[in-house]
């Protein structure tokens, strides 16, 4: 559309004209200084140390030898360790898929509730965050253990005659991880569904689309940004969470998080642990990059 005059940025309004443009920018960013300092000291420096550490090695007592080597990275290519990466990767992918399948309907119906009910349901979804995640993971052992609640109920009603073995399996870890991360998926999708213009759905019905056709042709494509965001928010922590696989997996399946934890503590091999940590960070960056591409494509086609 033709605009007679280009809109001027707000900071060049008359009342600010005495001050320089750059001064204004600096002033605007001033309040963010503490957080920048916080992150550079408490995240940046440790990360740098990890990166440096990953190129060093250790003696038999676990002391660091200050000598540059790529051995740690070479070790990572060992099939045993690649297997661990694969375990973590598939755990993260399955966690993403499960939380998506369960989270989408929940988010969809939450968004269609009336205002008061909606806030209440969102509160319920967020409620578990108020309790320690470690405690909640222990909760699952109480639920799933051989002498746990589910087995006891099934035994009591004679559905089974000996306890089902539900603990210390890949599926157990998957259940716990999905449970822990599903709120992120629900909230992300909820935001997308909530923003969806209902008149678009009405237009689809009006033009001859049934409920399902409308869902697949209109709702799903238009909530794709929420799905991508949710998937990323679930996928990344699922790669690294290690206490869930410790408690629910019993070490039967090895994941990167556990491996790093074991090497850094019991294994006394901090350089190797650091190399794995860097490997994981690279994996996360890759996922973020893919998400960035998806989000950008969506932005170009979906929004004005």
């Amino acid at each position, binding site marked *: *559309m033709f605009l007679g005059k280009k809109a001027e940025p707000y900071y060049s309004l008359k009342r600010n004209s005495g001050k320089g443009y750059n001064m204004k920018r600096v002033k605007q960013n001033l309040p963010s200084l503490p957080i920048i300092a916080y992150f550079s000291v408490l995240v940046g420096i440790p990360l740098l140390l990890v990166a440096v550490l990953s190129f060093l090695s250790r003696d038999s007592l676990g002391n660091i030898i200050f000598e540059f080597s790529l051995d740690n990275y070479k070790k990572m290519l060992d099939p045993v360790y690649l297997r661990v990466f694969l375990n973590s990767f598939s755990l993260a992918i399955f966690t993403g898929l499960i939380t998506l399948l369960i989270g989408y309907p929940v988010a969809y119906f939450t968004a269609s509730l009336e205002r008061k009910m909606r806030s209440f349901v969102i509160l319920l979804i967020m409620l578990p965050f108020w309790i320690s995640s470690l405690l909640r993971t222990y909760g699952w052992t109480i639920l799933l253990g051989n002498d746990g609640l589910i087995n006891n109920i099934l035994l009591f009603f004679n559905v089974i005659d000996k306890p089902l073995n539900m603990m210390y399996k890949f599926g157990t870890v998957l259940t716990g991880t999905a449970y822990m991360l599903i709120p992120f998926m629900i909230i992300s999708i909820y935001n997308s569904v909530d923003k969806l*213009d209902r*008149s*678009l759905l*009405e*237009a*689809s*019905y*009006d*033009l*001859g*689309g*049934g409920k399902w*056709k409308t869902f697949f*042709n*209109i709702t799903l*494509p*238009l909530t794709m940004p929420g799905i991508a965001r949710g998937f990323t928010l679930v996928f990344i922590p699922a790669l690294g969470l290690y206490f869930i696989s410790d408690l629910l997996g019993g070490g039967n399946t090895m994941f990167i998080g556990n491996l790093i934890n074991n090497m850094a503590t019991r294994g006394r091999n901090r350089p190797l642990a650091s190399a794995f940590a860097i490997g994981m960070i690279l994996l996360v960056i890759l996922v973020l990059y893919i998400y960035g591409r998806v989000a950008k494509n969506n932005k170009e*086609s*979906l*929004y*004005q």
Partner: protein
Amino acid sequence: MNEQLLRLTNINKFFGNSHILKDVTLDINDGEFITLLGPSGCGKTTILRCIAGLESIDSGDILLYGESIKDLAPNKRNVNTVFQNYALFPHLNVYDNVAYGPRIKKAMDENQIKKRVTEMLELVQMSGFEKRMTHQLSGGQRQRIAIARALINKPDILLLDEPLGALDLKLRKYMQTELAQLQKRTKTTFIYVTHDQEEALNMSDRIVVISEGEIQQVGTPNDIYNNSKNFFVADFIGDRNIKEVKVLEKKEDFCSVKLGSSVIDIKSNRSMVDRDKCDGRGSAILAIHMDKMKISYTQIPNSLFGEITFVHYAGSQIRTDVDVDGEVVTVIEYQNDYDNYNIGDKVYVSWEESGALLLPKEK
């Protein structure tokens, strides 16, 4: 032309405790351009949504070609809607938007669809825009795509919900003509919702005036404008002087009323007041179109005598306020017999007979 394409019988609709539609009964003929006109919140959009199936009705029936469609889902009704905000699908380009209907209905193969889409885009003069995304279009262009998308299914009725509301004045006037021509060309029945009386008077074959969920009057634009049936319609349509008058007596062919100290005779065919109520004590509403009035300095029978209090020149028209015994009457003239009016002049105000209406005071 088939008579009565669509028939609404005694439709009632509630939202919670509020009674949105009250016994709405209306027949719509095949091929006509009918406008639902009323202030915002009067229920006109709700009627449209009930016809489309986007809103259910609490009682009454909707008959299309004599068959009830009130329980059919919106996708099973052969009516299509042009939404107020156009509701174009933002993730689809123009071609895919227009092709959405036949594709989702699996009504034709891709070759036929292509032919139809091309035809539709030609109809709304948007050929060549197939690959554009909808956010790259101007308001008027989006409007055209919305119409093309709604017409591609060859609906029995096209429902238009204030489609010109978001456009600027000039484009709105242009699109009014376009829409009216499009309707004649496609021979599709249009049901058009608006709160803009000028739009309604311009385009429609018939107008339905609605207020507070009730139909006030159904008629041709001329009928609605000149022979308003009640106080609401008289007040809503056109610029009128609306004055409460005393009814003195009703004779064979006229009715005498008193405004201030002047006694005026209104011909019987311009009076909607019951004969029984003209007993000399009751009062009624006198409504006179401002632009059918005239000011003169010499006495004319059947006129009001007063003093000019305000003169406003607005290009082609002159608006003059005349104080008649404390009641201000506004006169709109396009030319006058005098060079100038002066404030304080004593004048006589008269009007064409067809410009005046005597209406009952109650609704």
